[in-house]
């Protein structure tokens, strides 16, 4: 049986788990193609106009998949951690899709609500396996392998790699170290992010993303805000920012956000205000379906140059 996974949204955050689990269960796993202009256009066609780009892309990837698989996996992410939920668009994703994509009959909706952490994840996997009449043993094995592969994936990040982009390691002696903060489905989709991370690396920058910081350190920052944000991915971003503010181990921060993104107006402004306080250079890059290469390149170059000059001055002053 062929199960399709749209290469969008949560895919980028959890794909090693998903792919391994379904493969080991004995499914034929088909991931939609890498984002292209065509997929983007399909998405724009079906999604409502004021949706943000990542949501439009999800629509596009579903269109890319739906006629060549038996089921298209559409997760409804409700909770992964006890302290936060997801952007309302994640919560309403299957409802949106069933109304806006014509003739979408093979949606496989999976509600992910892991209030109690691991245990719930295990139960969810078992329930899923049972639905497709897979044996407990097989399911258990698949679950373990999936966890393992996810662990391996997070480990690669901690080593300075960025596996979704195929980056294994980075040069440690780069002159400039920059944090690129944003949601995984923005940063790791090279089409959407206009290959921003690789561009920076080619400019000789060492790039840090939220996944590359240790979970423990991020969690420590949780108390910095008066009120926890409601959204898991946003918390990742903002906590990473606070980590970096505090340790001052990067030269600047680039926040990558989607045009019209709901949660980000809060996230971005909070970070901007505090970046000023900590004297951390800060740049916001807003992406939409029309953002051009040219403009982005100039802005990145200007930002990196500015940092280089600043650093040189500082070093000269110290010498």
């Amino acid at each position, binding site marked *: 049986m062929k199960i399709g996974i749209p290469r969008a949204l949560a895919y980028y955050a959890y794909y090693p788990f998903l792919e391994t689990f379904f493969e080991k269960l004995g499914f034929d796993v088909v991931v939609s193609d890498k984002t292209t202009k065509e997929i983007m256009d399909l998405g724009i066609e079906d999604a409502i106009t004021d949706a943000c780009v990542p949501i439009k892309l999800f629509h596009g990837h579903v269109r890319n998949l739906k006629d060549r698989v038996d089921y298209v996996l559409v997760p409804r992410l409700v909770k992964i951690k006890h302290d936060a939920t997801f952007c309302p668009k994640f919560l309403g994703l*299957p409802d949106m899709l069933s109304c806006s994509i014509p003739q979408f009959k093979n949606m496989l909706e999976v509600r992910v609500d892991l209030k109690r952490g691991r245990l719930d994840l295990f139960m969810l996997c078992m329930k899923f396996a049972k639905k497709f009449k897979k044996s407990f043993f097989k399911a258990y094995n698949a679950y373990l392998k999936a966890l393992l592969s996810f662990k391996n994936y997070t480990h690669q990040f901690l080593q300075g790699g960025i596996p979704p982009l195929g980056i294994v390691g980075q040069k440690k002696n780069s002159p400039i170290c920059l944090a690129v903060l944003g949601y995984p489905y923005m940063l790791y989709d090279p089409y959407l992010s206009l290959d921003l991370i690789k561009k920076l690396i080619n400019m000789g920058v060492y790039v840090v993303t939220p996944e590359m910081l240790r979970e423990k350190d991020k969690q420590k920052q949780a108390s910095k805000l008066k009120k926890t944000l409601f959204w898991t991915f946003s918390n990742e971003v903002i906590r990473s920012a606070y980590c970096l503010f505090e340790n001052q181990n990067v030269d600047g921060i680039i926040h990558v956000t989607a045009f019209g993104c709901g949660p980000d107006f809060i996230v971005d402004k909070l970070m901007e205000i505090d970046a000023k306080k900590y004297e951390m250079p800060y740049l916001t890059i807003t992406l939409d379906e029309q953002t051009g290469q040219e403009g982005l390149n100039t802005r990145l170059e200007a930002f990196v140059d500015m940092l280089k000059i600043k650093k040189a001055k500082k070093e000269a002053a110290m010498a």
Partner: protein
Amino acid sequence: MRKVSFPYMGTSYIPFERLLTAFGNEVVVPPRPTEETISYGTKYAPEFACYPFKIVLGTYIQVLEAGADTLVSSGGVGPCRAGLYTTLQEKILKDLGYEFEMITLEPPGRHLRDLIDNIKKLINDRLSLKDYISIGRFAWKQLVLLDKAERLSHKMRPLEVKRGDTTQTYKKCVELIAGAKKYSDLREIEREVELLYDAIEKKDYDPIKIGIVGEIYVLLEPSSNLEIEEMLGELGVYVERSMFLSEYTISNAVMDLFHIAGDRDAKKMAAPYFKEMCGGHGRESVGNSVLFAKRGFDGIIQLSPFTCIPEIVAKSILPKVCKEHGLGFLTISLDEQTGKEGLRTRLEAFVDLLMAKRKKAESFRVKSQYVKEMA
């Protein structure tokens, strides 16, 4: 003495002012949002902030300039942004150099202790239990009456013979209610309100009925929705809004305390289309549309602030819902650039469409009756 202020939303400032004054605070009554308010809001809020955020931020700046030193607002637990408004607004305003205390009243369900502590900060007079009860009862009655007067105005406006009668009457009612001194006054005023509306000269016909759903702030604050209800009423349409503040307070404060889900009906109706609660009022919008359909309405108008997340989700579901129930559907996204004239044109076209639809349905009915008689 604290100088307290709060966001402006419809006529709710009347009971709020009463309540806060009775507790021994000086109140800076927020002005009705104007272009100036909105321009402050758009200047200091992030570009993609939702419209209500901008208006409220603008209002805060105005009241702080007028000398307020304490801002009171309601919180929320998400998942939508409204619950985080105050965190960010406080940061922005302090960054601008204002000094004040922000008091956020969270719904009682989860943070009852905090709520009580916060309310204590606002109580500066020694009051007996009896005083509390009488103040509370008075403010609540005022709120309920204000909602009632507004509801009646929606009902009467399409029927009025002389344009503007209803609006006049409504204004008078608000004044009366605001001027009441004692609880017994309010009882009398209630009767008077009914009489005043009765006195309006009315036509006798069956107006087009439109239900309005959407995000709470733009529903409740007429200056943010360009007085859409008045406009529709003047086009001869009966409008009904899915939400009033008094009901909303019950479902969010009282029910929350006892962990009862409010708005049961609307949620049940939305269930087949909208399986998850996703914050804001997206699900209520869908559910209420179904309820309106069941009551024989002709169309639905959805009001959503630009970039409002839950309403975007609702927006992709509503067309299907309305089609299945034979309702006309119009969605209006509001921000500082929405113009009144453009809106009026769209409304006129929408009303024409509904009228044509109704005619068609009627002639169909007549025809089928005719066929039956022939047979």
